């Protein structure tokens, strides 16, 4: 039966996506960029919309929510997944509202008055069946996908507004958005870039070699030298993994130090983040967003034998992603 085939095909794809998500977080698999993850999530959700069985908007939203929960559970640190799921849910609600014919404004704004007087839950509203809902939703998701394609380019177009000639720019680790940003500016302006290598994965090295290909003067420094050279830096431009609801960032290890050093020297800090990185999550506690990776990158287990013989405990920590902080100037698409 074609329907069943489609379903198994769909669940296979979802399973493979989930396992990839699980793997990529540990650093063992290939580190994929957030843009890729966002694109794949959206594509998967579009396929779900097309192939899954649902009767009305409410059921569709239930299915999407379920899949979304599974995906975020597979890799909680990859917040773009959750963000894209929320975007798709919003698309469904919008399309539903448009199909109903009611003007968007009054339905979108849940005024306090409406909440008090309506009394009942608004979920009943999503039970109506519309013939073209599926097509509309899929079209809207396609639009979302094209939007995703163009984010990096849109950010890079603003590069010349922020970088003047002979500047010294500092960045940390590797961010594809920042890379494209700097490369775009390098076509017209001459400036220097200092890259902090961001141990232990040393993604800064990749960033530096990639920037050099465009003839940008690059210097690689170890993380310890960030404060030492900050006095000569004109701007700090960084990428991030997530932008949190209170304006804080969840970014690669060492970004907090970089930000504090920039603040001490009154150097402006610019964050380049596409729309899909904005997340409605709040950092309630400092500890909730950390992700730990195996410490063997830092201190191999073979060296641990020295201490085992003396029967003394020592613990090794390595944090791959640390969230923080408030001071920044946000540049969005």
């Amino acid at each position, binding site marked *: 039966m074609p329907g069943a085939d489609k379903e198994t095909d769909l669940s296979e794809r979802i399973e493979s996506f989930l396992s990839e998500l699980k793997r990529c977080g540990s650093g063992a698999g290939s580190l994929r960029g957030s843009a890729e993850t966002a694109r794949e999530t959206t594509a998967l959700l579009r396929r779900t919309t097309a192939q899954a069985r649902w009767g009305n908007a409410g059921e569709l939203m239930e299915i999407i929510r379920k899949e979304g929960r599974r995906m975020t559970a597979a890799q909680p640190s990859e917040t773009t997944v959750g963000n894209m799921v929320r975007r798709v849910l919003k698309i469904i609600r919008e399309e539903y509202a448009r199909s109903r014919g009611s003007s968007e404004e009054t339905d979108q704004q849940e005024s306090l008055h409406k909440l008090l007087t309506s009394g009942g839950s608004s979920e009943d509203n999503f039970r109506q069946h519309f013939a073209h809902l599926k097509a509309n939703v899929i079209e809207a998701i396609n639009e979302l996908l094209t939007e995703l394609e163009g984010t990096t380019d849109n950010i890079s177009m603003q590069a010349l507004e922020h970088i003047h000639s002979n500047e010294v720019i500092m960045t940390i680790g590797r961010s594809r958005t920042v890379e494209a940003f700097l490369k775009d500016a390098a076509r017209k302006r001459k400036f220097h870039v200092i890259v902090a*290598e*961001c*141990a*232990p*994965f*040393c993604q800064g*090295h*990749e960033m*530096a*070699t990639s920037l*050099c290909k465009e*003839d*940008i*003067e*690059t*210097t*690689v*420094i*170890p*993380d*310890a*030298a*960030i*404060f*030492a*050279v900050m*006095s*000569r830096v004109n701007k700090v431009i960084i990428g991030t993994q997530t932008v949190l609801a209170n304006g804080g960032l969840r970014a690669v*290890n*060492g970004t*907090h*130090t970089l930000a*504090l*050093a920039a603040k*001490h020297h009154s150097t402006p800090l610019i964050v380049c983040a596409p729309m899909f990185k904005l997340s409605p999550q709040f950092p309630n506690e*400092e500890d909730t967003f*950390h992700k730990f990776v195996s410490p063997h990158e*830092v*201190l191999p287990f073979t*060296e641990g034998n*020295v*201490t085992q013989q*003396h029967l*003394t*405990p*020592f*613990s*090794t*920590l*390595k*944090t791959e992603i*640390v969230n*923080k902080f408030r001071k920044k100037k946000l540049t969005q698409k």
Partner: protein
Amino acid sequence: MADSDGRQVDSINHSTGNICRLKLFKRKELTREEKQRLRKEKKQHKKNKKDDRGPPEKEKEKEKASVPAPSKPATQSPAHKAAPVPVNASASESPVAAEKPAKSKAEQRAERRARQDTERASKQGKKEGGQLSASSKPKATPNELQPVVKRLPEHIQVDDPAALKKLAKKLERQQVRQINIVPLRSDYGYKVSLFSHLHQYSRKNPPTQQISIPATVIHPSIVRLGLQYSQGIIAGSNARSVALLHAFKQVIRDYSTPPNEELSRDLVNKLSPYISFLSQCRPLSASMGNAIKYIKKEISNIPSQCKEEEAKRRLQECIDSYINEKIILASEAISKYAIEKISDGDVILVYGCSSLVNHILCEAFEKQRKFRVIVVDSRPRLEGKEALRRLVKKGIRCTYVLISALSYILPEVSKVFLGAHALLANGYVMSRVGTSQIALVAKAFNVPVLVCCETYKFCERVQTDSFVSNELDDPDDLIVTRNGKTHLENWQTVKSLGLLNLVYDVTPPDFVDLVITDLGMIPCTSVPVVLRVKNVDQ
């Protein structure tokens, strides 16, 4: 003068190693006055030679001040004692027998400084088009105020070709009587433009490769020491100073005074090429600089009637007492003060491997204090692993993180203990690169920062940023292979790529809450007071 000429010739021959001829002549010991006269004549002879070669500016200055001033840039060789200033001319020309050598040395140092001042001014005058009237005026004033004219250390003048040429000449001149030369190390790799005034050497080209065997100028223990420095086998300012002093003890043991020289002067001359060699291997640290100053002072304070054996024994004792007082006892005193600051239940953060801080923690652990330690480490040196090993061996509970995880780990920390390489006169702390970062983030989290430093590391230099005087380590250390890929492998071939491997950085005093020294616990800004008190004592 023929006789003295003959003797002069013989003394020169003696120094080239023609011992047989010497023995025939110099059977009896010269008296002190004769030695001094000989020395004076030798210097006069050399000065005459230099005067002939001097450029015409000298004549102009002669008119202005009526004193022959050799305008050829002279180096620090203490053998050259010209007298440009009329006031001191008589004093230096007639060495009074009763005069203590130290006093005339101080005057001569002052003259030398004044002379260098005028030379520098005259060089500038030459550039500006010969305004020598302005330049010769400062010559008069430095003499009245005790001149504190500092010569720029050569290790921060790499971008000045004139300074490099001077250094090469100085190294050559120090070996003018011997065949071998102290090699001039060449820089390696592309230097980041901000640091083009500093040297950058590669560990794969040690300076000892260019020394021929046998190295008769440089004592073998000094050669070994230089190699150990350049390869990083001996690292850490205390370790380097102690190794240096032990090597000097060996040098003094093997030293024998040549017949017409005095130990107090000749030994200092012998040490100069060694020091140049060591600074070519690795730039001298502030602690080493202070130790060298102390030794030179002790050597020149040896009274001339002292017999050689006695003098050597005395010098060895001085060195031993210096090590004992300034390093070993000082660390005991610092531990005592620091242990008062460690309470039970503390979580202490340390950075890298500081021998002093490790000592403090081990002592505190022996005194049954309950605390745990977080060791922060950074690439590329990864010295924290050594500290970790030592502390764990003692039985202290440790945690090991890299410096990028600092803001994660700091909320748990109650105190930060840092070691220092040197304390500068404006209160800045010069230490391993990354220390300022730790102090900055600790300040942001309101964690007290305590710096532990012995007083012999205090230095009179003033520095406000980490660029002007620093050390560049081998840039190849930054290269790392992960997952079989080495991204920076061919960094030399890529035109616009530079690797920066800094060794030191300076921490502003507002990040440091307390400095624990052997004199007590002082704030960072009290360093110049300590220096002043120390100078008065001496």
